[in-house]
């Protein structure tokens, strides 16, 4: 998306008419699935000070006599249940349930930004912190003064007391959004950073200003 192709009224109109995110829940692995709720059920996401209290149970999947209950990560309303699969064997990744999650203003800004930014995601479920060099540059000048290049060691992943350097592999850009706090436990695939190509910075600022100003 470039500044030329951003049509703010259209984008905001889209979110005004349907201010929801539709979160698909897919089979975490192959197995026999059993649904634990009906369509239109209200569900809760994870909660607790450490995000340790699981959300509402959504489905149970059994592999080799080992049942596992999968819970919702987000709050909302169940908009779709693939009932035809109830009690059947499914492959990993099969779409099972969709949850309609009501978006807040901050989430709408983030959703639009994530279409513009390059998202750098967690390679594994682990705890993450910035490399020493990046952390000291953030401390001195702030994240948005930092330009990162492909190949830069930006993050250290800590898993089972083993530290692994993580190298940036996206387009060069400015460290615009940081989605974790150093030492946070982050699930695999969840964005850690949003990197903005320098030429898109003004577009990003426009998005934030416009949504903040116009969204109730």
């Amino acid at each position, binding site marked *: 998306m470039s500044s030329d192709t951003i049509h703010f009224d259209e984008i905001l109109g889209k979110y005004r008419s349907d201010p929801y995110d539709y979160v698909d829940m897919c089979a975490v692995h192959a197995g026999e699935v059993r649904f634990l709720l009906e369509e239109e059920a209200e569900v809760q996401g994870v909660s*607790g*000070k*450490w995000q*340790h*209290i699981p959300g509402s149970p959504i489905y149970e999947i059994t592999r*080799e006599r*080992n049942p596992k209950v999968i819970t919702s990560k987000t709050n909302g309303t169940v908009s779709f249940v693939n009932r035809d699969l109830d009690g059947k064997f499914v492959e990993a990744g099969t779409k099972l349930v969709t949850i309609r999650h009501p978006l807040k203003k901050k989430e709408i800004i983030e959703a639009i930004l994530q279409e513009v930014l390059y998202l750098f995601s967690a390679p*594994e*479920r*682990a*705890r993450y912190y910035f490399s020493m060099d990046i952390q000291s540059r953030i401390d001195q000048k702030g994240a948005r003064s930092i330009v990162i290049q492909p190949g830069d060691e930006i993050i250290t992943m*800590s*898993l*089972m*007391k*083993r*530290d*692994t*350097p993580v*190298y940036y592999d996206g387009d060069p850009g400015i460290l615009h959004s940081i989605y974790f706090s150093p*030492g946070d*436990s982050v699930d695999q695939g969840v964005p850690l950073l949003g990197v903005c190509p320098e030429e898109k910075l003004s577009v990003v600022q426009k998005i934030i200003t416009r949504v903040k100003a116009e969204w109730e």
Partner: protein
Amino acid sequence: MLSHGNLLDLAASLTADSPFAAPVTRSILRYGAPLGCRITHHHTLPRCMDLLRGRALAGNAPVPHTGEVVRADRLTGGQGRFGRYWFAPEGGLHMAFLWADTLLPEWSRFLPFAVGIACCETIRAHGAGATLKWVNDVHVQGRKIGGILTETIIGSRGDRYHLVGIGLNMNVTRFPEELRKRATSLQLETGQPRAIDTVFAHLLARLQWNIGLLCYGEEQGLSEGIGPGENPVLLRWQELSDSVGARIVFGYDVWKKPLYEGIVTGLDDQGGLVIRLDDGSSITEYSGEIEYQ
């Protein structure tokens, strides 16, 4: 001088009572055999890990061997996690090794466990009742007797290695004031000094076995599938650990920033520590550290 051949013989003799059938035992030993293929021994180094890291990162040097070991009699810049001071005088066993990252990520996560098991078994074999605190702190009745540091590094040619540093307190009888309540040594626990060369050889042999066991577990997992509770490394770790059932404080850096308290109820099949909080809820941690209360 410990030769690789002697080391292989020692590993085979130490596993004479292996619970596995003879062909499996041989397979495990084969997997672990590269450990100790090259050993260099120094009197004094800043850190053994730095020397090996430098070799892996140097573009103009030969590619390091997997299983290459560096040992020093004393370290001048010993460090634990978060830059914590590691007391490493003469009388301790200080070493590091490189292991090429050939394991799948879902198995390489157990390498720190395998190394901890080897250290704990070695200390036990020499008379002290060591146990493992999640992930791999080796201690005797709450006092640390061994420390392990594991990093993954990318070599100059893009090759990945696990770099493992190990420090065992052997014949150390006096610790700095700030460590006295936290640390102990084999000599303090058993009342007599040990031949460090002998303990070093035993440690390498047990590293061969336990890293071999990890590789064998991966092989089994890929060929036949491993169900929950069947990972041989985790099973052995649980035999040696006193973490399950303990009341603990958890933190990413628990000394500086303890986060919460709870009781350890078990390990999940990924090695995650399952902690029951006081409100009855549970949380599973895959990184960080614990202190017993």
